Protein backbone atom coordinates (compact mmCIF):
# COMPACT_ATOMS: atom_id res chain seq x y z
CA UNK A 1 0.00 0.00 0.00
CA UNK A 2 2.86 2.39 0.68
CA UNK A 3 4.57 1.54 -2.58
CA UNK A 4 2.52 4.25 -4.31
CA UNK A 5 4.31 7.08 -2.54
CA UNK A 6 5.84 9.27 -5.22
CA UNK A 7 8.24 11.41 -3.27
CA UNK A 8 10.66 12.97 -5.70
CA UNK A 9 9.72 10.40 -8.27
CA UNK A 10 12.10 9.84 -11.14
CA UNK A 11 11.30 8.38 -14.55
CA UNK A 12 14.50 7.01 -16.06
CA UNK A 13 15.01 8.01 -19.66
CA UNK A 14 17.61 9.06 -22.15
CA UNK A 15 16.26 12.31 -23.59
CA UNK A 16 18.31 15.50 -23.88
CA UNK A 17 16.44 16.79 -20.83
CA UNK A 18 17.51 13.74 -18.86
CA UNK A 19 21.11 14.14 -19.93
CA UNK A 20 21.42 17.81 -19.03
CA UNK A 21 23.69 18.53 -16.10
CA UNK A 22 21.62 18.62 -12.88
CA UNK A 23 23.04 22.05 -12.09
CA UNK A 24 21.75 23.36 -15.41
CA UNK A 25 18.32 21.96 -14.67
CA UNK A 26 18.26 23.39 -11.16
CA UNK A 27 19.25 26.85 -12.39
CA UNK A 28 16.79 26.69 -15.28
CA UNK A 29 14.00 25.84 -12.88
CA UNK A 30 14.83 29.07 -11.05
CA UNK A 31 14.79 30.94 -14.38
CA UNK A 32 11.49 29.29 -15.21
CA UNK A 33 9.93 30.34 -11.89
CA UNK A 34 11.14 33.92 -12.32
CA UNK A 35 9.70 33.98 -15.84
CA UNK A 36 6.44 32.57 -14.60
CA UNK A 37 6.08 35.24 -11.94
CA UNK A 38 7.06 37.96 -14.34
CA UNK A 39 4.39 36.92 -16.84
CA UNK A 40 1.44 39.28 -16.78
CA UNK A 41 -0.96 38.72 -19.62
CA UNK A 42 -2.11 36.06 -22.08
CA UNK A 43 0.82 36.31 -24.49
CA UNK A 44 3.52 35.87 -21.84
CA UNK A 45 1.64 33.06 -20.11
CA UNK A 46 1.22 31.37 -23.47
CA UNK A 47 4.97 31.60 -24.01
CA UNK A 48 5.74 29.98 -20.64
CA UNK A 49 3.12 27.29 -21.28
CA UNK A 50 4.60 26.63 -24.70
CA UNK A 51 8.06 26.21 -23.16
CA UNK A 52 6.72 23.70 -20.66
CA UNK A 53 4.90 21.73 -23.35
CA UNK A 54 8.06 21.59 -25.47
CA UNK A 55 10.09 20.39 -22.45
CA UNK A 56 7.51 17.72 -21.60
CA UNK A 57 7.44 16.68 -25.26
CA UNK A 58 11.23 16.26 -25.45
CA UNK A 59 11.51 14.49 -22.08
CA UNK A 60 8.99 11.81 -23.08
CA UNK A 61 7.17 11.98 -19.73
CA UNK A 62 3.56 11.00 -20.37
CA UNK A 63 1.00 13.85 -20.11
CA UNK A 64 -1.18 11.53 -18.07
CA UNK A 65 1.50 11.24 -15.39
CA UNK A 66 1.62 15.01 -15.17
CA UNK A 67 -2.16 15.33 -14.82
CA UNK A 68 -2.02 12.68 -12.12
CA UNK A 69 0.65 14.61 -10.24
CA UNK A 70 -1.60 17.69 -10.22
CA UNK A 71 -4.51 15.78 -8.75
CA UNK A 72 -3.50 16.00 -5.07
CA UNK A 73 -3.16 19.77 -5.52
CA UNK A 74 -6.55 20.18 -7.13
CA UNK A 75 -8.11 21.49 -3.93
CA UNK A 76 -5.49 24.18 -3.36
CA UNK A 77 -5.62 25.23 -6.98
CA UNK A 78 -9.41 25.51 -7.03
CA UNK A 79 -9.51 27.20 -3.63
CA UNK A 80 -7.07 29.91 -4.73
CA UNK A 81 -9.00 30.30 -7.96
CA UNK A 82 -12.34 30.75 -6.20
CA UNK A 83 -10.93 33.20 -3.66
CA UNK A 84 -9.56 35.32 -6.47
CA UNK A 85 -12.78 35.03 -8.39
CA UNK A 86 -14.98 36.47 -5.64
CA UNK A 87 -12.69 38.84 -3.82
CA UNK A 88 -11.27 40.99 -6.55
CA UNK A 89 -12.73 44.45 -6.92
CA UNK A 90 -13.42 45.98 -10.29
CA UNK A 91 -15.97 46.14 -13.04
CA UNK A 92 -18.94 43.97 -12.09
CA UNK A 93 -19.64 41.14 -14.47
CA UNK A 94 -22.31 39.15 -12.65
CA UNK A 95 -23.85 39.92 -9.31
CA UNK A 96 -26.09 37.66 -7.24
CA UNK A 97 -27.06 37.58 -3.56
CA UNK A 98 -24.05 38.82 -1.57
CA UNK A 99 -21.30 38.00 -4.03
CA UNK A 100 -20.18 39.62 -7.19
CA UNK A 101 -17.90 38.36 -9.89
CA UNK A 102 -15.87 41.06 -11.51
CA UNK A 103 -14.19 41.05 -14.85
CA UNK A 104 -10.83 41.49 -13.13
CA UNK A 105 -11.63 38.66 -10.72
CA UNK A 106 -12.30 36.29 -13.57
CA UNK A 107 -9.02 36.93 -15.37
CA UNK A 108 -7.09 36.97 -12.12
CA UNK A 109 -8.54 33.61 -11.05
CA UNK A 110 -7.68 32.18 -14.45
CA UNK A 111 -4.09 33.38 -14.29
CA UNK A 112 -3.73 32.19 -10.69
CA UNK A 113 -4.85 28.67 -11.57
CA UNK A 114 -2.58 28.67 -14.58
CA UNK A 115 0.34 29.98 -12.56
CA UNK A 116 0.11 27.37 -9.80
CA UNK A 117 -0.34 24.53 -12.27
CA UNK A 118 2.62 25.69 -14.33
CA UNK A 119 4.74 26.16 -11.22
CA UNK A 120 4.05 22.67 -9.91
CA UNK A 121 4.39 20.96 -13.25
CA UNK A 122 7.61 22.79 -14.06
CA UNK A 123 9.29 21.85 -10.81
CA UNK A 124 8.03 18.28 -11.08
CA UNK A 125 9.74 18.05 -14.46
CA UNK A 126 13.02 18.51 -12.60
CA UNK A 127 12.52 15.48 -10.35
CA UNK A 128 10.92 13.46 -13.15
CA UNK A 129 14.01 13.75 -15.33
CA UNK A 130 16.83 13.88 -12.75
CA UNK A 131 17.86 10.93 -10.58
CA UNK A 132 17.90 11.75 -6.86
CA UNK A 133 21.63 11.11 -6.66
CA UNK A 134 22.56 13.52 -9.43
CA UNK A 135 20.08 16.01 -8.01
CA UNK A 136 21.87 15.98 -4.64
CA UNK A 137 25.22 16.17 -6.42
CA UNK A 138 23.98 19.17 -8.35
CA UNK A 139 22.77 20.91 -5.23
CA UNK A 140 25.99 20.21 -3.40
CA UNK A 141 28.00 21.64 -6.23
CA UNK A 142 25.79 24.75 -6.59
CA UNK A 143 25.75 25.44 -2.87
CA UNK A 144 29.48 24.88 -2.41
CA UNK A 145 30.26 28.62 -2.09
CA UNK A 146 28.09 28.64 1.07
CA UNK A 147 30.82 26.62 2.78
CA UNK A 148 32.58 29.90 3.43
CA UNK A 149 29.59 30.92 5.54
CA UNK A 150 30.17 27.76 7.62
CA UNK A 151 27.12 26.03 6.21
CA UNK A 152 27.84 22.26 6.15
CA UNK A 153 27.01 21.75 2.49
CA UNK A 154 28.65 18.36 2.12
CA UNK A 155 27.01 16.98 5.25
CA UNK A 156 23.59 18.21 4.15
CA UNK A 157 23.89 16.60 0.76
CA UNK A 158 25.19 13.39 2.33
CA UNK A 159 22.17 13.34 4.63
CA UNK A 160 19.83 13.87 1.73
CA UNK A 161 21.51 11.12 -0.27
CA UNK A 162 21.15 8.68 2.64
CA UNK A 163 17.55 9.75 3.26
CA UNK A 164 16.70 9.02 -0.36
CA UNK A 165 18.49 5.69 -0.18
CA UNK A 166 16.49 4.66 2.89
CA UNK A 167 13.03 5.66 1.66
CA UNK A 168 12.35 2.28 0.00
CA UNK A 169 13.92 0.37 2.91
CA UNK A 170 11.84 2.16 5.51
CA UNK A 171 8.72 1.89 3.34
CA UNK A 172 9.11 -1.87 3.22
CA UNK A 173 9.71 -1.92 6.94
CA UNK A 174 6.59 0.16 7.64
CA UNK A 175 4.55 -2.26 5.55
CA UNK A 176 5.96 -5.13 7.59
CA UNK A 177 5.19 -3.44 10.91
CA UNK A 178 1.65 -2.65 9.78
CA UNK A 179 1.09 -6.28 8.85
CA UNK A 180 2.56 -7.45 12.15
CA UNK A 181 0.34 -5.10 14.16
CA UNK A 182 -2.70 -6.09 12.12
CA UNK A 183 -1.93 -9.72 12.83
CA UNK A 184 -2.12 -8.83 16.53
CA UNK A 185 -5.52 -7.27 16.05
CA UNK A 186 -4.64 -3.60 15.58
CA UNK A 187 -7.34 -1.65 13.80
CA UNK A 188 -6.24 1.11 11.43
CA UNK A 189 -9.35 1.51 9.35
CA UNK A 190 -12.18 2.46 11.66
CA UNK A 191 -12.91 5.31 14.05
CA UNK A 192 -12.64 9.06 13.69
CA UNK A 193 -9.58 11.07 12.89
CA UNK A 194 -8.28 11.08 16.47
CA UNK A 195 -8.71 7.33 16.85
CA UNK A 196 -6.88 6.74 13.59
CA UNK A 197 -4.06 9.05 14.55
CA UNK A 198 -3.73 7.17 17.82
CA UNK A 199 -3.64 3.88 15.93
CA UNK A 200 -0.45 5.08 14.24
CA UNK A 201 1.51 5.07 17.50
CA UNK A 202 2.16 1.29 17.46
CA UNK A 203 3.55 1.72 13.94
CA UNK A 204 5.70 4.76 14.62
CA UNK A 205 7.34 3.54 17.82
CA UNK A 206 8.90 0.37 16.35
CA UNK A 207 9.74 2.25 13.18
CA UNK A 208 11.64 4.90 15.11
CA UNK A 209 13.47 2.37 17.25
CA UNK A 210 14.58 0.38 14.25
CA UNK A 211 15.60 3.56 12.40
CA UNK A 212 17.89 4.54 15.25
CA UNK A 213 19.42 1.07 15.21
CA UNK A 214 19.90 1.31 11.46
CA UNK A 215 21.45 4.75 11.80
CA UNK A 216 23.91 3.44 14.35
CA UNK A 217 24.94 0.48 12.21
CA UNK A 218 25.17 2.64 9.12
CA UNK A 219 27.43 5.10 10.90
CA UNK A 220 29.76 2.27 11.96
CA UNK A 221 29.77 0.85 8.44
CA UNK A 222 30.58 4.28 7.01
CA UNK A 223 33.43 4.71 9.47
CA UNK A 224 34.75 1.30 8.49
CA UNK A 225 34.83 2.53 4.93
CA UNK A 226 37.04 5.45 5.92
CA UNK A 227 34.37 8.13 5.89
CA UNK A 228 35.71 11.24 7.55
CA UNK A 229 33.61 14.08 6.21
CA UNK A 230 33.86 15.98 2.94
CA UNK A 231 37.51 16.90 3.37
CA UNK A 232 39.67 15.52 0.57
CA UNK A 233 36.90 13.49 -0.98
CA UNK A 234 36.88 12.64 -4.67
CA UNK A 235 33.92 11.59 -6.79
CA UNK A 236 33.36 8.71 -9.18
CA UNK A 237 31.04 10.80 -11.30
CA UNK A 238 32.24 14.34 -11.73
CA UNK A 239 29.62 16.79 -12.96
CA UNK A 240 30.60 18.44 -16.21
CA UNK A 241 28.91 21.14 -18.27
CA UNK A 242 28.60 20.23 -21.93
CA UNK A 243 27.56 22.00 -25.13
CA UNK A 244 23.92 21.06 -24.56
CA UNK A 245 23.98 22.86 -21.22
CA UNK A 246 25.16 26.04 -22.91
CA UNK A 247 22.32 25.72 -25.44
CA UNK A 248 19.83 25.18 -22.62
CA UNK A 249 21.07 28.26 -20.75
CA UNK A 250 20.88 30.28 -23.96
CA UNK A 251 17.27 29.22 -24.62
CA UNK A 252 16.35 29.87 -20.99
CA UNK A 253 17.80 33.38 -21.22
CA UNK A 254 15.86 34.10 -24.41
CA UNK A 255 12.59 32.99 -22.83
CA UNK A 256 13.20 35.06 -19.70
CA UNK A 257 14.15 38.12 -21.76
CA UNK A 258 11.05 37.74 -23.94
CA UNK A 259 8.78 37.46 -20.91
CA UNK A 260 10.32 40.59 -19.38
CA UNK A 261 9.90 42.46 -22.69
CA UNK A 262 6.30 41.32 -22.96
CA UNK A 263 5.67 42.56 -19.44
CA UNK A 264 7.04 45.97 -20.30
CA UNK A 265 4.58 46.13 -23.19
CA UNK A 266 1.85 44.88 -20.88
CA UNK A 267 1.14 41.73 -22.86
Amino acid at each position, binding site marked *: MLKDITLGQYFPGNSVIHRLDPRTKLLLVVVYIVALFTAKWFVSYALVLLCLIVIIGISGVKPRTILKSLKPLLFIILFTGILNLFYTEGKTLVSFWISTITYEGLTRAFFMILRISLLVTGTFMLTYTT*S*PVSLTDGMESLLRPLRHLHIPVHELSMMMCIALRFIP*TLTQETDKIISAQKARGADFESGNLVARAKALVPILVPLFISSFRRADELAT*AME*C*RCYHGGEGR*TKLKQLQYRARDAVAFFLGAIVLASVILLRIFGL
Partner: protein
Amino acid sequence: METKAISVEQLNFAYAGGEDTPTVQVFENLDFSVEEGSFVAVLGRNGCGKSTLAKHFNAILLPSGGKVSVFSMDTSDEDALLDIRKCVGMVFQNPDNQIISNVVEEDVAFAPENLGIPRDEIRRRVDEALEIVGMTKYKNHAPHLLSGGQKQRIAIAGVIAMRPKCIVLDEPTAMLDPRGRREVMETIRRLNEESKITVVLITHHMAEAALADRVVVMEHGNILADGTPKEVFSQVQRLKDARLTVPETTQLLYELNQNGYDFSLDSLSVEECAQAIYKTFA
Protein backbone atom coordinates in the same frame (compact mmCIF):
# COMPACT_ATOMS: atom_id res chain seq x y z
CA MET B 1 58.93 -15.43 10.46
CA GLU B 2 55.43 -15.03 9.13
CA THR B 3 53.86 -11.59 9.49
CA LYS B 4 50.90 -11.29 11.77
CA ALA B 5 47.88 -9.67 10.16
CA ILE B 6 46.28 -9.06 13.50
CA SER B 7 47.79 -9.46 16.89
CA VAL B 8 45.97 -8.95 20.17
CA GLU B 9 48.04 -8.88 23.35
CA GLN B 10 46.63 -8.91 26.85
CA LEU B 11 43.43 -7.22 25.68
CA ASN B 12 41.13 -5.79 28.33
CA PHE B 13 37.84 -4.27 27.39
CA ALA B 14 34.66 -3.33 29.22
CA TYR B 15 31.47 -1.65 28.08
CA ALA B 16 31.07 1.25 30.49
CA GLY B 17 27.87 1.06 32.49
CA GLY B 18 25.45 3.89 33.10
CA GLU B 19 23.20 4.64 36.05
CA ASP B 20 21.03 1.57 35.64
CA THR B 21 23.34 -0.69 33.68
CA PRO B 22 26.35 -2.36 35.22
CA THR B 23 29.74 -2.23 33.58
CA VAL B 24 30.28 -5.33 31.48
CA GLN B 25 33.77 -6.70 31.41
CA VAL B 26 34.10 -8.43 28.04
CA PHE B 27 37.77 -9.35 27.83
CA GLU B 28 40.37 -9.95 30.45
CA ASN B 29 43.92 -10.40 29.24
CA LEU B 30 42.95 -11.96 25.95
CA ASP B 31 45.68 -13.03 23.53
CA PHE B 32 44.83 -13.73 19.94
CA SER B 33 46.46 -13.47 16.55
CA VAL B 34 45.77 -14.03 12.90
CA GLU B 35 48.46 -15.01 10.39
CA GLU B 36 48.62 -13.10 7.14
CA GLY B 37 46.80 -14.85 4.30
CA SER B 38 44.88 -17.24 6.52
CA PHE B 39 41.15 -17.87 6.75
CA VAL B 40 40.06 -17.89 10.38
CA ALA B 41 36.56 -18.60 11.63
CA VAL B 42 35.55 -17.31 15.04
CA LEU B 43 32.71 -19.27 16.61
CA GLY B 44 30.70 -18.66 19.71
CA ARG B 45 27.27 -18.14 21.12
CA ASN B 46 25.56 -14.75 21.24
CA GLY B 47 27.20 -12.48 23.76
CA CYS B 48 30.50 -14.35 23.89
CA GLY B 49 32.38 -11.27 22.71
CA LYS B 50 33.12 -12.24 19.14
CA SER B 51 31.60 -9.10 17.59
CA THR B 52 33.27 -6.93 20.21
CA LEU B 53 36.58 -8.53 19.37
CA ALA B 54 36.00 -7.91 15.66
CA LYS B 55 35.38 -4.21 16.28
CA HIS B 56 38.83 -3.98 17.83
CA PHE B 57 40.44 -5.07 14.57
CA ASN B 58 39.85 -1.78 12.80
CA ALA B 59 39.75 0.65 15.68
CA ILE B 60 35.99 1.00 15.91
CA LEU B 61 36.55 0.07 19.55
CA LEU B 62 39.78 0.74 21.37
CA PRO B 63 41.18 -1.49 24.10
CA SER B 64 40.94 -0.26 27.68
CA GLY B 65 44.05 -2.25 28.42
CA GLY B 66 46.57 -4.21 26.38
CA LYS B 67 47.36 -3.72 22.75
CA VAL B 68 45.80 -4.53 19.38
CA SER B 69 47.94 -4.14 16.29
CA VAL B 70 47.14 -4.79 12.68
CA PHE B 71 49.95 -5.16 10.16
CA SER B 72 52.28 -3.65 12.80
CA MET B 73 50.09 -0.56 13.30
CA ASP B 74 48.79 0.09 16.79
CA THR B 75 45.01 0.66 16.64
CA SER B 76 45.18 3.29 19.37
CA ASP B 77 47.42 5.44 17.18
CA GLU B 78 45.02 8.07 15.86
CA ASP B 79 47.27 9.21 13.05
CA ALA B 80 47.21 5.73 11.55
CA LEU B 81 43.42 5.46 11.74
CA LEU B 82 42.67 5.73 8.02
CA ASP B 83 45.53 3.39 7.16
CA ILE B 84 44.24 0.84 9.63
CA ARG B 85 40.70 1.00 8.28
CA LYS B 86 42.03 0.80 4.74
CA CYS B 87 43.95 -2.35 5.65
CA VAL B 88 41.20 -4.08 7.57
CA GLY B 89 37.80 -3.91 5.92
CA MET B 90 34.68 -4.89 7.76
CA VAL B 91 31.38 -6.36 6.61
CA PHE B 92 28.36 -6.54 8.91
CA GLN B 93 25.28 -8.67 9.31
CA ASN B 94 22.59 -6.54 7.73
CA PRO B 95 23.46 -5.53 4.17
CA ASP B 96 20.68 -2.92 4.14
CA ASN B 97 22.43 -0.93 6.84
CA GLN B 98 25.78 -0.83 5.05
CA ILE B 99 24.74 0.39 1.64
CA ILE B 100 24.91 4.14 1.29
CA SER B 101 23.91 4.98 -2.24
CA ASN B 102 20.91 4.42 -4.50
CA VAL B 103 23.09 3.02 -7.25
CA VAL B 104 25.25 -0.09 -6.85
CA GLU B 105 28.43 1.26 -8.44
CA GLU B 106 28.24 4.53 -6.53
CA ASP B 107 27.99 2.58 -3.32
CA VAL B 108 31.07 0.53 -4.18
CA ALA B 109 32.84 3.80 -4.98
CA PHE B 110 32.09 5.22 -1.53
CA ALA B 111 35.24 4.03 0.23
CA PRO B 112 37.70 5.01 -2.51
CA GLU B 113 35.95 8.39 -2.74
CA ASN B 114 36.54 8.86 0.98
CA LEU B 115 40.20 8.04 0.50
CA GLY B 116 40.51 10.77 -2.11
CA ILE B 117 41.60 8.47 -4.90
CA PRO B 118 41.63 9.98 -8.43
CA ARG B 119 38.57 9.34 -10.57
CA ASP B 120 40.07 6.98 -13.14
CA GLU B 121 41.51 4.83 -10.39
CA ILE B 122 38.14 4.72 -8.60
CA ARG B 123 36.51 3.56 -11.85
CA ARG B 124 39.09 0.78 -12.16
CA ARG B 125 38.69 -0.34 -8.56
CA VAL B 126 34.89 -0.32 -8.71
CA ASP B 127 34.85 -2.42 -11.87
CA GLU B 128 37.41 -4.79 -10.40
CA ALA B 129 35.56 -5.16 -7.08
CA LEU B 130 32.24 -5.83 -8.80
CA GLU B 131 33.96 -8.37 -11.03
CA ILE B 132 35.40 -10.22 -8.02
CA VAL B 133 32.00 -10.55 -6.33
CA GLY B 134 30.34 -11.35 -9.65
CA MET B 135 27.94 -8.41 -9.65
CA THR B 136 29.20 -6.48 -12.69
CA LYS B 137 25.94 -6.68 -14.58
CA TYR B 138 24.06 -5.09 -11.70
CA LYS B 139 26.25 -2.01 -11.46
CA ASN B 140 23.49 0.42 -12.36
CA HIS B 141 20.80 -1.25 -10.30
CA ALA B 142 19.12 0.12 -7.20
CA PRO B 143 20.30 -1.92 -4.18
CA HIS B 144 16.85 -2.30 -2.63
CA LEU B 145 15.72 -4.33 -5.63
CA LEU B 146 18.45 -6.96 -5.19
CA SER B 147 18.25 -10.15 -3.13
CA GLY B 148 19.87 -10.40 0.30
CA GLY B 149 22.84 -12.40 -0.98
CA GLN B 150 23.40 -9.93 -3.80
CA LYS B 151 23.22 -6.99 -1.42
CA GLN B 152 25.75 -8.62 0.87
CA ARG B 153 28.07 -9.19 -2.09
CA ILE B 154 27.74 -5.48 -2.91
CA ALA B 155 28.69 -4.69 0.67
CA ILE B 156 31.75 -6.95 0.27
CA ALA B 157 32.62 -5.23 -3.01
CA GLY B 158 32.36 -1.89 -1.21
CA VAL B 159 35.04 -3.10 1.17
CA ILE B 160 37.36 -4.69 -1.40
CA ALA B 161 37.35 -1.44 -3.36
CA MET B 162 39.66 -0.15 -0.61
CA ARG B 163 42.05 -3.00 -1.49
CA PRO B 164 42.30 -4.16 2.13
CA LYS B 165 44.82 -6.80 3.18
CA CYS B 166 42.32 -8.31 5.58
CA ILE B 167 38.54 -8.53 5.70
CA VAL B 168 36.59 -9.11 8.89
CA LEU B 169 33.06 -10.38 8.35
CA ASP B 170 30.68 -10.22 11.29
CA GLU B 171 28.00 -12.88 10.71
CA PRO B 172 27.61 -11.91 7.06
CA THR B 173 25.17 -14.71 6.32
CA ALA B 174 22.94 -14.50 9.40
CA MET B 175 20.13 -12.72 7.58
CA LEU B 176 20.34 -14.60 4.31
CA ASP B 177 18.48 -17.55 2.83
CA PRO B 178 20.46 -20.72 2.02
CA ARG B 179 21.12 -19.58 -1.53
CA GLY B 180 22.38 -16.17 -0.48
CA ARG B 181 24.51 -17.85 2.15
CA ARG B 182 26.15 -20.07 -0.46
CA GLU B 183 26.82 -17.09 -2.76
CA VAL B 184 28.46 -15.13 0.02
CA MET B 185 30.52 -18.06 1.30
CA GLU B 186 31.82 -18.79 -2.20
CA THR B 187 32.80 -15.15 -2.58
CA ILE B 188 34.64 -15.18 0.73
CA ARG B 189 36.53 -18.35 -0.16
CA ARG B 190 37.53 -16.91 -3.49
CA LEU B 191 38.78 -13.72 -1.86
CA ASN B 192 41.00 -15.76 0.39
CA GLU B 193 42.28 -18.17 -2.24
CA GLU B 194 42.58 -15.98 -5.32
CA SER B 195 43.08 -12.47 -3.99
CA LYS B 196 45.14 -13.71 -1.01
CA ILE B 197 43.16 -11.55 1.41
CA THR B 198 43.28 -12.55 5.06
CA VAL B 199 39.75 -13.42 6.15
CA VAL B 200 38.32 -13.41 9.66
CA LEU B 201 34.81 -14.84 9.57
CA ILE B 202 32.64 -14.47 12.61
CA THR B 203 29.78 -16.89 12.51
CA HIS B 204 27.67 -19.35 14.39
CA HIS B 205 27.17 -21.64 11.43
CA MET B 206 29.32 -24.70 11.94
CA ALA B 207 29.23 -25.63 8.26
CA GLU B 208 30.70 -22.24 7.37
CA ALA B 209 33.39 -22.47 10.00
CA ALA B 210 34.36 -25.88 8.60
CA LEU B 211 35.49 -24.14 5.39
CA ALA B 212 38.15 -22.14 7.22
CA ASP B 213 41.82 -23.03 7.75
CA ARG B 214 41.53 -22.39 11.43
CA VAL B 215 38.64 -22.29 13.88
CA VAL B 216 38.63 -20.35 17.12
CA VAL B 217 35.86 -21.00 19.62
CA MET B 218 35.06 -18.28 22.10
CA GLU B 219 33.14 -18.32 25.34
CA HIS B 220 32.71 -15.52 27.88
CA GLY B 221 35.49 -13.50 26.29
CA ASN B 222 37.96 -16.37 26.42
CA ILE B 223 39.27 -18.68 23.79
CA LEU B 224 37.92 -22.15 24.41
CA ALA B 225 39.43 -23.99 21.49
CA ASP B 226 41.76 -23.07 18.67
CA GLY B 227 42.99 -25.21 15.79
CA THR B 228 42.11 -26.64 12.40
CA PRO B 229 38.41 -27.39 11.89
CA LYS B 230 39.15 -31.10 12.32
CA GLU B 231 40.96 -30.60 15.60
CA VAL B 232 38.32 -28.29 16.99
CA PHE B 233 35.22 -30.14 15.94
CA SER B 234 36.50 -33.46 17.20
CA GLN B 235 36.31 -32.02 20.73
CA VAL B 236 32.59 -32.65 20.64
CA GLN B 237 32.01 -32.81 24.38
CA ARG B 238 33.82 -29.56 24.98
CA LEU B 239 31.79 -27.73 22.34
CA LYS B 240 28.59 -29.15 23.72
CA ASP B 241 29.50 -27.88 27.15
CA ALA B 242 29.80 -24.42 25.63
CA ARG B 243 26.34 -25.09 24.16
CA LEU B 244 27.55 -25.04 20.59
CA THR B 245 26.54 -27.58 18.03
CA VAL B 246 29.04 -29.41 15.85
CA PRO B 247 28.69 -30.08 12.11
CA GLU B 248 26.13 -32.78 11.34
CA THR B 249 28.77 -35.21 10.08
CA THR B 250 30.74 -34.97 13.32
CA GLN B 251 27.52 -35.27 15.28
CA LEU B 252 26.65 -38.51 13.46
CA LEU B 253 30.06 -40.08 14.10
CA TYR B 254 29.96 -38.89 17.68
CA GLU B 255 26.64 -40.58 18.29
CA LEU B 256 27.86 -43.78 16.63
CA ASN B 257 30.82 -43.69 19.02
CA GLN B 258 28.45 -43.31 21.95
CA ASN B 259 26.95 -46.58 20.84
CA GLY B 260 30.16 -48.48 20.95
CA TYR B 261 31.83 -47.74 17.63
CA ASP B 262 35.24 -46.23 17.33
CA PHE B 263 35.35 -43.57 14.64
CA SER B 264 37.88 -40.79 14.55
CA LEU B 265 35.91 -37.54 14.65
CA ASP B 266 37.89 -35.65 12.05
CA SER B 267 35.78 -36.49 8.98
CA LEU B 268 34.11 -33.18 8.25
CA SER B 269 32.79 -33.38 4.71
CA VAL B 270 29.86 -35.64 3.89
CA GLU B 271 32.12 -37.54 1.52
CA GLU B 272 34.79 -38.26 4.17
CA CYS B 273 32.16 -39.19 6.69
CA ALA B 274 30.50 -41.63 4.30
CA GLN B 275 33.88 -43.18 3.48
CA ALA B 276 34.69 -43.65 7.16
CA ILE B 277 31.39 -45.37 7.83
CA TYR B 278 31.67 -47.46 4.69
CA LYS B 279 35.15 -48.68 5.67
CA THR B 280 33.99 -49.82 9.09
CA PHE B 281 30.94 -51.66 7.88
CA ALA B 282 32.26 -53.12 4.64
